[in-house]
């Protein structure tokens, strides 16, 4: 414990540390501030704003939400890899929590943490809040292409609903009675990623079958490619955004729920079931 106070032991060292720290903070912050001209939208940003929902443009993505059209159309590949990173992070957390019986928390019968949850008032509120969160989640996820929201935001909100149940009731209630187990969540997450990949690969398959040029993750027609997802189905503006948002929702919701579930495995599980004593 002595080492943490060594910095402050001599005044000169402390002064040097403080000055260099301040200089470092100022340099980093000024560098971050100077990366963008503030108050001015660059031509690239204006281009996106002008073309995102412009039916006369050759580069339209037919989504009134300009942010969503950048995320899943103009820069779709970035988001694709980001989704993969999130998927791999959740899988990595699962791997770190692996034991000889598989992923921790699968063996609910043996989990006896004595968790009874909170009193009846938070439980009743949690029931109501759960339903409200689900309604909001559906709205956020499915309307993401023409109002603020999208798959990631909806998935994160849904994981909060699971966390609310976990806090108000118990981990066991969430896994046993509501079926939010780690295994099921892993399957749901894979389903989400596969759904996104299917939507992304449809233009490629179309191109192989017809010979017309079409690209990975293509949404609307381009000047050199006639391929386009139907943008108006039953009066709904769809494109690729609706199925991709659903896939991203499944991915993010189950990824966050896995992380919440694994971080709330009671320590007694490791002591009793795995016979691993913490030093």
């Amino acid at each position: 414990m002595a080492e943490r106070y060594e910095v402050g032991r001599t005044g000169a060292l402390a002064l040097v540390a403080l000055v260099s720290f301040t200089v470092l903070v100022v340099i980093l912050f000024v560098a971050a501030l100077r990366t963008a001209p503030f108050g001015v939208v660059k031509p690239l940003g204006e281009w996106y704003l002008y073309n995102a929902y412009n039916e006369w443009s050759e580069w339209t993505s037919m989504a009134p939400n300009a942010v969503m059209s950048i995320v899943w159309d103009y820069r779709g590949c970035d988001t694709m890899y980001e989704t993969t990173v999130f998927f791999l992070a959740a899988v990595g957390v699962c791997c770190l929590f692996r034991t000889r019986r598989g992923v921790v928390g699968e063996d609910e019968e043996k989990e006896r943490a004595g968790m009874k949850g909170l009193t009846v008032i938070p439980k009743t509120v949690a029931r109501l809040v759960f339903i409200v969160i689900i309604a909001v989640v559906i709205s956020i996820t499915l309307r993401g292409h023409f109002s603020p929201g999208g798959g990631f935001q909806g998935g994160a909100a849904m994981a909060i609903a699971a966390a609310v149940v976990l806090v108000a009731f118990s981990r066991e209630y969430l896994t046993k009675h509501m079926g939010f187990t780690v295994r099921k969540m892993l399957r749901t997450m894979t389903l989400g990623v596969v759904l996104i990949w299917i939507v992304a690969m449809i233009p490629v398959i179309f191109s192989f079958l017809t010979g017309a040029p079409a690209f990975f993750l293509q949404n609307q027609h381009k000047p050199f490619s006639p391929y386009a997802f139907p943008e108006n189905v039953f009066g709904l503006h769809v494109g690729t955004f609706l199925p991709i948002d659903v896939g991203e929702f499944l991915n993010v919701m189950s990824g966050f729920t896995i992380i919440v579930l694994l971080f709330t495995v009671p320590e007694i599980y490791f002591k009793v079931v795995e016979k691993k004593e913490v030093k």
Partner: protein
Amino acid sequence: MAQTLATIILQHYPYAVLFVMFAISLWGLIFKPNIIKKILCLAFMFDAINTLYALSCWRWAKYPLPAILTDLHPTPEELKVFASSAVDPLPQALVLTAVVIGAATTAALLALAVMIYRHYGTLEMSEIRKLKG
């Protein structure tokens, strides 16, 4: 709405608030010996940087608009007005991606911290260093 001191500071000096956030998180990242505190400071730093970038998409306009068209059948003139007065959508899209990556990084770091605790029985950096053979 009653203006509290916090809202006044946030409205008029957002960059100062972010600067303090950044400084505190960098301080904790360097000088705090507990791994959980280091991870918290890292998450705090993600938030400061992401807020800074989300803030950088505002623009000087008489009536700045959000980057979402509310009219589902716009005319070309309306689109031109929209493009010249809406905020920049690009930093928002980048921040959205960065938030997910930040969450994934924090989750992986926390899992590693749990593993370190199981292994060493402590989260203090100095004690972990002493245990090294």
